[in-house]
């Protein structure tokens, strides 16, 4: 498959829509998300990022009960003008086939931080996932001080830290039991 030379997004007055973004051709070089009608364009993850995503997918899938599904890179509709693409999600409806999943179907959103996305993942995305009521948020952050994992649980509309670990190690009991070893 040949990569597009450019991605054309229809220009019109006012905010961009979910429809605008869903119509974009697959661009594996970057991710285009929609936040309150603005476009957010971020580069695709480099090898270290992808490697971590792969390990998370393997370990979460192995531990997941049969009534949930772990997926990669799906479109999640948070609101009429909010479309995000979490690195991984844990969804309630295994085997379903949607172009876009409503936030209500998500148990957990997982983001692996890259240098380009640190502030966005920790500030904006966290807020957006909390606002749409996603019960759990897992942030995986390869800092200079080590591979930090932080799991959050939604409590009265805000994320409170549920568990955290250094060196890529984290044991969770929610939303299901899993021992993450990402080092």
């Amino acid at each position: 498959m040949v990569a597009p030379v450019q991605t054309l997004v229809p220009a019109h007055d006012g905010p961009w829509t979910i429809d605008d973004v869903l119509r974009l051709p697959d661009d594996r070089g970057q991710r285009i998300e929609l936040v309150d009608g603005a476009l957010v364009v971020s580069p695709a993850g480099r090898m270290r990022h992808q490697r971590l995503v792969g390990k998370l997918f393997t370990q979460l899938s192995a531990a997941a009960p049969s009534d949930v599904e772990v997926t990669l890179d799906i479109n999640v509709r948070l609101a009429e003008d909010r479309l995000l693409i979490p690195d991984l999600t844990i969804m309630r409806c295994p085997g379903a086939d949607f172009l876009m999943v409503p936030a209500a179907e998500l148990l957990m959103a997982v983001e692996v931080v890259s240098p380009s996305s640190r502030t966005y993942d920790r500030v904006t995305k966290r807020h957006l996932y909390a606002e749409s009521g996603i019960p759990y948020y897992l942030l995986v952050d390869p800092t200079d001080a080590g591979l930090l994992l932080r799991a959050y649980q939604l409590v009265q509309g805000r994320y409170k830290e549920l568990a955290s670990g250094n060196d890529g190690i984290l044991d969770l009991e929610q939303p299901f039991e899993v021992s993450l070893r990402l080092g």
Partner: protein
Amino acid sequence: MANSVDQDIALLEHSLAIPYHPHPWTLDEVLALGDEQGLRVELCDGMLHVGPTPSRRHQRLLGRLMVAIDQVLPRELELLPAVNVLLSDSRLVVPDLSVNVEPGGTGAYVPAEQVALVVEVLSASSRLYDTGLKRQVYADAGIKHYLLVDPDAASATLLELDFGEYSEVNRSAGGILYLTDPFTAELDLRG
């Protein structure tokens, strides 16, 4: 499916063209992209934020603020709408208004050290961004004053930076903001 050349041209003329770019965006690339397409393109650590065209209501209030500030602004300060402000070598934002301490500059951007005040007029599209991530990156860059104006509530809040964090130091009352820092002004936000 092949398009005719005419259709391709039409699509190009009426679209935002995001180049294939599987790497973090750089300052130079973002400056070029924003200029070419006349859109508000901001950069945060390699990610782009492309804002939609602002609403008439947003522009109306912004226009009135500009006139009011311009009338009272001391000569050693300069008011500019929608210029690039460089917060770091990987962060570029476009505040609705910025008040700068070195009038007459001609570069592609104003460096953060020269900015005394940034003003953002909130809209449905920008509210989260202006109160969240933008607030953080302005603080990181040491911009002393950040004025957030809410047209829906006809209210404004002035934040001042102290030890790296913003705190609220002034708030409008009855739709009017009495500003004393970094200059004196009475700003009517109503209507």
